[in-house]
């Protein structure tokens, strides 16, 4: 069984989500409905998008500590410019994606540690967000609002969105040629460069993809909350990193799983609800979330170690 789990790294995230879901339904049987499931998971949609964005960065052996501030900024832009002057709004969002690509170039070209650059950028994004929306406010553009509150028959929006995000990113990163080369950059950048690939451009692409998914996360978040705030998504930084790792990714070596990342995001969102159902005081919830994370990671480590010994 260890071999099975080590070879198919996706099994453990699926199992964790299933166990947590079962526990939640046991605690609160009324959550087992169309409305209940949507409520449990709709806030997971922006988290899933942010997790995918973080995955793009981790895929090329970097880490993004500015993602939460960036998603907050996007939320502010969405609730103000995109609502009032859509053309300008779209331009700003496109500019933000380009800025992310530029960050990738900067980090690779000058061999800067991504952790430092992105930590610095988090203050830049936060500052811009504050100057756009000094106090909570703004309005979600109606089309995003209706998109996020759509009620498909049979399956709730949150589930459809999660499956869609997982499918699209899986195709992009795992199935396409360029996605394979991008993962190769994380695995062995030197050999990718030797095969004639422009690694600088590939890194810019990875960062641009992260920017794109960060923008989508911010827009989705505003669609759910209807208004924005400069600090609305600060916890996304750590949630997204945790989601990637929970979903079977590794910090280095280009080992990432888009489907796993989405499942990881869902698990983290669900863990928060589960702990509320346990009537755990919010003060303890962050710690308990951390405990769940450590538990899953320990399980994974045991499986890979055992497999290594057998193997």
């Amino acid at each position, binding site marked *: 069984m260890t071999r099975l789990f080590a*070879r198919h790294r996706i099994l453990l995230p699926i199992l964790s989500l299933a166990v947590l879901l079962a526990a939640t339904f046991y605690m609160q049987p009324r959550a087992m409905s169309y409305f209940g499931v949507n409520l449990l998971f709709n806030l997971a949609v922006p988290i899933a998008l942010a997790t995918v964005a973080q995955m793009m960065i981790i895929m090329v052996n970097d880490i993004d500590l500015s993602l939460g501030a960036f998603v907050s900024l996007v939320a502010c832009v969405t609730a103000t410019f995109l609502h009032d002057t859509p053309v300008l709004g779209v331009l700003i969002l496109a500019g933000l994606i380009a800025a992310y690509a530029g960050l990738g170039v900067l980090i690779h070209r000058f061999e800067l540690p991504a952790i430092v650059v992105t930590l610095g950028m988090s203050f830049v994004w936060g500052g811009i967000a504050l100057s756009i929306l000094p106090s909570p406010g703004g309005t979600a553009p109606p089309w995003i609002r209706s998109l996020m509150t759509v009620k498909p028959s049979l399956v709730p929006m949150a589930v459809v969105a999660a499956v869609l995000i997982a499918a699209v990113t899986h195709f992009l990163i795992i*199935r396409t*040629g360029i996605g394979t*080369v991008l*993962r*190769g950059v994380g695995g062995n950048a*030197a*050999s*990718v460069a030797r*095969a004639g690939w422009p690694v600088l451009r590939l890194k810019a692409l990875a960062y641009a993809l992260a920017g794109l998914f960060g923008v989508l996360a911010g827009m989705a978040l505003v669609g759910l909350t209807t208004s924005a705030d400069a600090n609305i998504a600060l916890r996304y930084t750590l949630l997204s990193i945790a989601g990637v790792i929970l979903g079977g990714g590794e910090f280095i070596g280009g080992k990432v799983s888009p489907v796993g990342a989405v499942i990881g995001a869902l698990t983290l969102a669900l863990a928060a609800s589960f702990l509320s159902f346990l009537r755990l005081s919010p003060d303890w919830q962050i710690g308990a979330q951390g405990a769940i994370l450590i538990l899953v990671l320990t399980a994974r480590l045991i499986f890979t170690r055992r497999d290594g010994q057998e193997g």
Partner: protein
Amino acid sequence: MNSAKVTGTPLVALTNAEKHFGAVRALDGVSLSIFPGECIGLVGHNGAGKSTLVNLVNGGLMPSAGTVSFPATGAPRALEAGVRSVFQELSLCPNLTVAENLRISHADLTGFGWRTRARAEIRKSLDTVFPDHGIDPNITVDRLTIAERQMVEIAIGFAPRGTQARLVILDEPTSSLDAAIAEQLLAHIRRFCAQGGAVLFISHMMGEIFDVASTIVVMKDGKIVASRPTPDFTRASLVEAMGHVAGPETEKAATSRPAFGADILNSKTGLTASKGEVVGLAGLAGHGQAEALAQLYFEHTSSWRAGKGSDMVFVAGDRGRDGILPLWSILRNTTVSILPQIARRGIVDRAAETRIAAEWKARIGIRTADVTNNILSLSGGNQQKVLFARALASKAPVVVMDDPMRGVDVGTKQDVYAMIRSEAAKGRTFLWYSTETDEVCQCDRVFVFRDEAISAELTGADITEDRILEASFEMQGVDA
């Protein structure tokens, strides 16, 4: 065995190619043409310029002077000319599957269903080179053994990848393969050359070189010193071509080996040393010398107890990685090994620290105005002197040195040799791994490593360049 049938235009032609790294002439005017159907065996000792030559041919480096061209195809770059390299260090992406790794080096593999085509291509190539390989193209590379990874890398090298492999450079391709698999590879090289391909083959296994090469090219000090059809070489003449013919070591042979006491060191790997002896570790780079030293060092030291001085100190060769503390001063870098000895109740004795640093600055000749300057203000050679001072300042009776003279100028080397000699005379034991043969020839005893094991132990007059070369290269299967 294969007689060279040299016809047509060369696949690659180097004319007076030179490559300098700073003041170092890694390649000093090399002219070489490789024709279709040829298999060139490239041999030479450490630092002879083999890797630099390979990197010029495959486009990894640009020549400082002279030209590299690809007349047969007229292509401007090595990649388009069908030049493929299989490197000694494994260069696959471990997180990708075997088929995906082919995609990395085959950029034209695009569009719908590229995975199926990639799988088919790599499977076909593996089947051709290594029949019965048993490697699944869908498995991720990190689940393969080292030998299997090497096989995949070789198969990717020979795969058509949209065009056709014309010249395949194999750098120590058999080092991690067992004999049967290696034989499959050699058979494939012969087939490949018979069909008009060319191979540049680097190996420390002389038997393989004699077996498969049609021409043997010998390099030394950045130059080609011999290039002849294989049948014109014998085992003896090849070793002779690699080394310099009779040198200063003849004087050395005259001085008799001083008598040493019983061995004070005995490691699992078979290294032994007695008090006051300078023991050299030789052989081609990367054949387990550094690992043997590291293992020995860790066996004799503890991560928990620093105590009042352990019985072994380590001098790092890779200064940047495991030598200097780049943010600290010269003084701090020197005294870090002896802090427990000069501390009083856990507080560092600043006066003693300064005294010791000043003493070593004078003794070993560290060229600086002030020892409180940052360590990075020193040249590489002087940084290395600081590392020596750090080791010698301790009372440890055994000093382990991992290729410490890397990138050190001649003057410093002479200073350090003298220091080692005088310390050895006082009863210290040195274990010294060096990639330079003339350094190893100064030792009292030499262990030559090959394939992660000791292949020869030489003492006294036996320590000659020829004997070391002979033991560094696998000579089995060569008719003398």
